Structure formats: C-alpha cells, structure tokens
C-alpha cells in the first residue's frame, strides 16, 4: 500500500497552468492557480470541499470559462472554445456518483456509446481488461440504474480510460469505491502512466494522495502548498501527537491529535490527513463542539433482528440469508466491497425493498406487512447513499418538508430546525441551496433531516463518502454524541476502513454473504499489528480461498 509509483523518468513539461482563475458570478472558485505537469507525472489535488479543485480540473479540461492561460504541449488556450483542439487527448471524469452514466443503458451499451462518441475502434482485449479490473465483467447486461453506487463510480472511471488519453483528469474517482478496487485502479493508472500517460487526480483518500508524485493542497480558492507527500508531512510534524482527546483547541482523528500549542502527549509521525487539521488550526478554526442534551429514549434491548434475510433480482442473489442482530445504543459498521449488498440490506430493513425470504423484527415487532412498518416509521431515521435532498429547496425548506412529512407542528419544526442547525453547526447555511454548500454540510443537514422526528435508530448509507477529512472527523464526533447522549443506535456503511475503528461492531458482506460479524476490538486481537484496512483486505482474501 505504501509503495510509491515508479519514479519519473521524464523531464518534459506536458501542461502548464498560469494564473488560472474561475468564478461563478461573484463567487471565486479558484484564484491564480499556477503549476505544471510533466510527462508521465501523476499530480494529486487535495483540499477541503469547495476549495477549488474541481474548478481547476474543469478549466484544464476546457469545460468552464476561466481567466489566465493554459499551455498543453505547445498549444496555448484561454477558453473552452480554444480547448476544443486538445479534447481528443484529454479525458475527464467529473465528480459525483456516476454522473456521466445513462440510467437506462447497460454497461455494454455505455461502452458502445463512448466508443462511437470518440470514434474509437473496438479493442476487445483492453475493454475486457478494464471491465475485469472494475469487477463489472459479469454484469455487462445490467442497466446502470441497477448498479450499486461504487459500481457506477467504477464504470465512469473505466469509461474515462477507454480513449487511452494522454492526459487523464479524474475528479475524486474513488469516492465510494471499495479498498480492493481502489488498489486495482492505482495499478491500472500506474500501468498507463508507464505507457506515457499523465494524470491529475483529486482525491479525498489521503493514503492514495501520498502515492502520487506531487501534491497540490487547495484551500479556499487558493493553492497553499505544493510538494511530495513527505514534504507536506514534514511541515506538520511538530504539531502531531499520538492518541485522541477531546479538546476545544485541538483536532483528533484516526489515533492522532493535532495541536498548535504543545501538549504533554507523545509526538508521532504525521499522515497526510494531518495537513488539513493543522491548516484549519492555523486559520484559527476550532473543532465544532456538538452540544446535544442528554435524553433517555425508551427502547428495547434489541433494535433489529434479522433471520436469514434474502433478496434476489431475477436470478441474481444480492443478499443471501443474512442474520443480523443490532443492539440498543450500538454503532454497527456494515462493510463490504462494491455490490456486496450493503445498500440492498439496508433497504430491506427499511422496507424500501420487499423481502424475498427471511424474518425481520424491528423493535421487537415482527414485520410482515407494510402496515406493520407504518407504526415504526417514526422510530427510524435514514440517510440514503445519495442524500435524498430536494435541489430546488433551500436547506431550511428541505428540513421543513421532512418535518411536515412526519406531521410535526410548525412551532416544533421551527424549534427543531434552530436547535439542530446550531448543534450540528450549519445555521449559517439555512437559506442556501444544497448545491451551494460543501458536501460535509449537506451530510450534516441530511442527518438533521433524519433526526427531525426523534428516531431511536439511524441508518446511514455511506454518509462520509466524498466528504473532506475535517468534516468527517466532526461527523464521527457527532455520531458518538448522538449515541452517548441520546442512546440512538446507528447502522452505518463506509469505505473508509479507518472509520470502522469508531464502530463498536462490524458486519462484513461479500457477494451477498455475511463473512464476518464481530467486535472491532476482537478483530484487532485476532489480527495483531494491522490497521483496519489491512484487516479488511485480509478477511476478504481469506474468505476467497474458502
């Protein structure tokens, strides 16, 4: 995992970006970005949500107007129109879960479309390789709409590789992609680089970023640091301590604490993630303190009990006889590769999919019919993989809507909106539209929406995918607080294996089968010395051989 890409063997500059700025109306997305990219180089963009990474990528790909100049090889361009000439050498994968896919086309039809669009010849061997890499080879006749979130992401990714670009631009390509596929993706990108390709890749996974040749750190519309991952990390080693703590002055995440003041804790080697925290501290940002008043909600010991739940789509078995017990006040992590059946399982528990086989008890009640669920609706909160917010409504209007759906009175609603927006730290964004605010804010207000009716259990499907590091750390502190102060039980899926450390227990699915169901501590004892990502890969490998 930690090995670097093969070192550069070329000094030729492929792309030069000079003083590029992009603005949308009054809002400046990126100001005076300048950098260059060598041939066969892989450049990483990191930075908080809304820091200007996407806008810079869009300017280079010639899909947005910009000020400044960009030179590709010897060709200078100042506008999207002038960039037309080089578009056959560039491939862009925009951010978002499978945004470039057509829901009603199959995987195979997508290949046909993109091949024709670019006027490519069919290259069986290469296409097969891409499909196999993405784990989509067996599913070629499946409609895009029926793919899991991560499968959609991987499909978009291999489609962007189809034209074998000279310059590959990927905007958070691995959001929602499982650790196994992420490793495979890097192999492919590395191989293509050896054949002469360069790439600019933005990512929210710092373990990935540390493998790139060079990294640019974006913050609030500016590039604030450039260098290799070692160089960036070296700058923060004085502020990095071992262990976690709760403090108003310091950030803690993933077994490290970052603080500008010196602490009595032991210093440790930082990771790239620390760059974000130290940067936030230097800008005098403080961790949000979630103040959630203690409450004692009435609930039984066992929240969910599932006996042999099964879901089939035609002949395909998405979930195969899953047994599950989910206890009061527990944070349960649901892990597994893309398409393993996590979302499907959650949707069965929620009654969004009919159950093909098996028994389900929610809050001690056997669930058989739709009517059984209606009663329980008010006890359950759900945030879907895509955050089902209404784009045309402001954040406040969205919350109003959710409250109305659950029959809250106007007074109650207003009080709740006020309380939650303060507690979860988004009160300044209440009148903004979802697309105007960073993903991390959307994520927190989606949780607020799910909490409006005071549920006793929360189902969260990949709430942290694509969310920046600082926001993720805040989010996990929020979940802990919800659990500790309200006693809410939380079932959560994630592809950040480090986040699994914050769960009490994990359930791992593989191809619709439950392969592990154990407490996190016990797994650490079983696999001593490994971090959770390594444990996960180990488990997946073991169960393969059986």
């Amino acid at each position, binding site marked *: 995992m930690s090995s670097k890409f093969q070192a550069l063997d070329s000094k030729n500059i492929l792309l030069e970006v000079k003083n590029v700025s992009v603005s949308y109306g009054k809002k400046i997305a990126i100001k005076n970005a300048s950098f260059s990219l060598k041939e066969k180089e892989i450049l990483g963009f990191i930075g908080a949500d809304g820091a200007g990474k996407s806008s810079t990528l*869009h300017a280079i*790909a*010639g*899909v*947005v*107007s910009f000020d400044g100049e960009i030179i590709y090889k010897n060709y200078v361009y100042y506008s*999207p*129109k002038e960039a*037309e000439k080089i*578009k*056959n050498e*560039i*491939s*862009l994968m*925009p951010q*978002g879960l499978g*945004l*470039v*896919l*057509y*829901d*009603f*086309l199959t995987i195979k*039809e997508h290949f*046909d*479309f*993109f*091949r*024709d*669009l*670019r*006027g490519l010849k069919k290259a069986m061997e290469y296409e097969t390789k891409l499909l196999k890499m993405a784990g989509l080879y067996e599913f070629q006749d499946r*409609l895009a709409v029926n793919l899991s979130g991560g499968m959609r992401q991987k499909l978009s990714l291999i489609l962007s590789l189809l034209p074998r670009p000279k310059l590959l631009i990927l905007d958070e390509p691995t959001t929602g992609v499982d650790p196994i596929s992420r490793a495979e993706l890097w192999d492919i990108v590395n191989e293509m680089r050896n054949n002469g390709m360069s790439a600019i890749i933005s990512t929210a996974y710092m373990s990935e970023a540390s493998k790139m040749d060079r990294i640019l750190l974006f913050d609030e519309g500016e590039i604030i640091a450039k260098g290799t991952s070692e160089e960036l990390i070296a700058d923060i080693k004085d502020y990095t301590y071992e262990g976690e703590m709760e403090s108003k002055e310091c950030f803690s995440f993933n077994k490290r604490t970052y603080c500008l003041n010196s602490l009595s804790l032991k210093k440790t080697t930082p990771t790239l993630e620390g760059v974000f925290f130290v940067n936030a501290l230097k800008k005098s940002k403080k961790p949000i303190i979630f103040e959630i008043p203690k409450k004692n909600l009435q609930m039984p010991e066992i929240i969910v009990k599932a006996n042999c739940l099964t879901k089939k789509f035609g002949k395909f078995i998405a979930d195969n006889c899953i047994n599950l017990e989910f206890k009061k006040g527990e944070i349960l992590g649901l892990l597994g590769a893309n398409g393993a059946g996590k979302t499907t399982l959650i949707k069965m528990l929620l009654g969004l999919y009919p159950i093909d086989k098996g028994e389900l008890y929610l809050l001690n009640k056997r669930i058989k019919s739709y009517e059984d669920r209606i009663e329980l609706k008010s006890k359950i909160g759900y945030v879907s993989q895509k955050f089902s917010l209404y*784009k*045309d409504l402001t954040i406040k209007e969205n919350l109003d809507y959710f409250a109305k759906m659950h029959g809250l009175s106007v007074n109650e609603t207003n009080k709740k909106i006020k309380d939650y927006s303060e507690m979860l730290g988004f009160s300044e964004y209440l009148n903004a539209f979802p697309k105007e605010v960073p993903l991390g804010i959307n994520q927190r207000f989606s949780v607020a929406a799910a909490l409006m009716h005071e549920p006793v259990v929360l189902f969260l499907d990949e709430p942290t995918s694509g969310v920046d590091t600082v926001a993720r750390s805040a989010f996990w502190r929020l979940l802990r607080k919800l659990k500790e102060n309200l006693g809410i039980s939380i079932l959560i899926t994630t592809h950040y294996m480090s986040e699994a450390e914050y769960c009490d227990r994990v359930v791992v699915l593989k191809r619709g089968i439950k392969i592990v169901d154990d407490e996190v501590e016990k797994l650490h004892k079983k696999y001593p010395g490994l971090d959770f990502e390594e444990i996960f890969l180990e488990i997946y490998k073991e169960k393969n051989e059986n």
Partner: protein
Amino acid sequence: MRINVIKAYFKKEVIDLIRNKMIILTYLIPLMILILFGFGIKMEVTHVRTIIIDNDHSKLSLEIINKFSHTKYFDVKVENLTYKEALHKIQTNKADMIIIIPPSFSKNLYKGAQIGVFIDGSFPLRAVTLQGYVEKVLINGFNIKLPIKIENRNFFNESMRDYNAIVPGLFGLIFLVVPASLAAIMIVKEKEVGTIFNFYSAPITKIEFIISKLIPPFLFHSVNIFILLILALYLFDVPFRGNFFIFWIASEIYILISVGIGLLVSIITSTQIAALVLSVVITIIPGFLYSGILMPISSMGKESLIEAHIFPVMYYNHLVYDSFLVGEGFKSGGNILYFFILCAYAVILITLGTLFLKKAIK
C-alpha cells in the same frame, strides 16, 4: 460532421426513450389531443359583426334591433343595403352576419312573414353556434320563425362539417407543442443528471451535438404525421384535396421549427420540469390562438393579426387547411410564400440555438 457521433447519440436516445417509457407519451399525447379536441371543442362567440337591414321600420323591427344591440354577442350596425351588397360584405369579410327584415314584416307576421339571416360559414363551428344564438333571440323573444342561410365566404366547407375545420387546425397545435417539449426535456435531462459532461469534455462540435439531439424527436414525430393524417382521414372523415408532398414536407419543416424551439428552451432552463413547463407554455398559447381553431385569422383585430404573423402556426395551418380542404397547393403564390417562411423559421431557430448553446458549464 461525423456520423459516428450522431449514431452514438441516436442509438442511446432511442434505447433511453423506449426503456424509460417516454416513447408511449410521444405517441399517446398527440393522439389524445387530436381525439379529445377533435370531438370535444366547443366555443362561445362574442362581438359578431352584425349588419341589420331594416326595411320595415316598425315598432317590432326596432325592438328586434334593440334586442340584438343589447348583448355582448353582437356588434350591431343598422345599414341600408341591398341583398347583393350585404352578401358582398360577408364575402369580403366586412361582416359576420346579416339580418334582413323585409318590408311590412310586422304586418305580415301573422301570415308567416320571415326574417332572412346570413351567416359567414367559413368557420362552421362558429356559424352553428351563431345560428343558435340568433334563433334563441328571435324565437324565444318574438316567436318568429326564420330561414337562416349560412353563407360560405370561401366555399371551403360546403358540407358544413365541424371536423373539417377543427381537425386540420389541431395539426398546427400538436406539432408545435409536443416535439418542442420532447426535445427540450431530452436535452435538459443531460444537464440535470450530469451526462452533459460527456458532451462538454469530448471532442464533439456544438452542431454535431445539436443534430444528434434533435434527430430523435424529429424522427419520432415524423411518424406522427402519418398517424394523425390517417386518423384525420378515416376517423374524422376529413377530405384531402391537396398535394400530399406539400403537406408532408411542410409538416416536417414545422416539426423542425418545434424542436428548434425546444432547443432554445433547453438552453435557458436547467431542470426537466422547468423545460417542460416553459416549452408547453410558450407553444400552447400561440398554438391555440393562431391556429384558426378559435377564430379565423381573417376576422382578427389588427394587433392580433400582426401577432399571428409572428408565430409560425398561422403559416403552417394555412398550408394544412389548403391541403385538406382547398387543394390549391403551390398554384397559389401565397402558399409558396408561406412554405418558404416556414423554412426560414426552421433555419433561424436552429441557428440561434447553435449560437446560444454553450459548450461549457455556465
């Protein structure tokens, strides 16, 4: 222009339309409009230009004139004209209706004296409605029998069948509203979902994209020309006297105009629902008003007449009416002119679309 790009989009669009069931609407909506409106249009007629020729000058005749003057339905003028002159007024569209009260009418009433009523028949539905009004006033108010003759100014509809007037008028409405909304939705959908990036980031020209996106709705609706024509001829029994090719080509060009409007709508909207609403709103109103279904273009006031000439509906409808009911075709200079005006509309709209479409995030 590269065929592979157009092929890529065409295939994708057809698959998409079929799988998301939009194809059903593409064929169902025109059918429904034609059938519902064809069978069901009813109209209220007001401000009918009425000339009353009073040859009697009795108390009764004055009462009759009064009765007509005091409703919103008739704009009455009393004039002294001969029968021939009066008829000429209808034929030259100076009046919609003439009422002739014969000399000594009130004296001869008990012997069965009759009032002559002549109504402009060029819009049969309106004529029939008018006839009803007049009968109501005269028979209910005065218990007067009357022979009403409906005068056909243009001698279009000698058989006086309503369908003949309404059904061709609906072509201009349907082929303006439906292809425009389909085209607008199909383009805006890409913006809404995000797939528009495939166009932004690939080496495809704007023209290639526009052609690729407009061909499917254009072709799908071309099929509708034939479906609707068959219905008009066999379900509604409308005659077809003109040249089929003129009708067909004019319809294709008109559909092109409509998808061009859809293209423009898609440029200024960003959600499918907004695109649908906007394209329907801007097409349905002129589609109805200036189709000649509600009122004949020739009897419009000056302002609405100018407006009618702004929208392509009137030109197309003229050609359609000619094809169905008259059959002059290109023997009439007017028809040729209208045909070229339609072509100009199509070219202008699509050129504007090409100019305004941005191949970049706005």
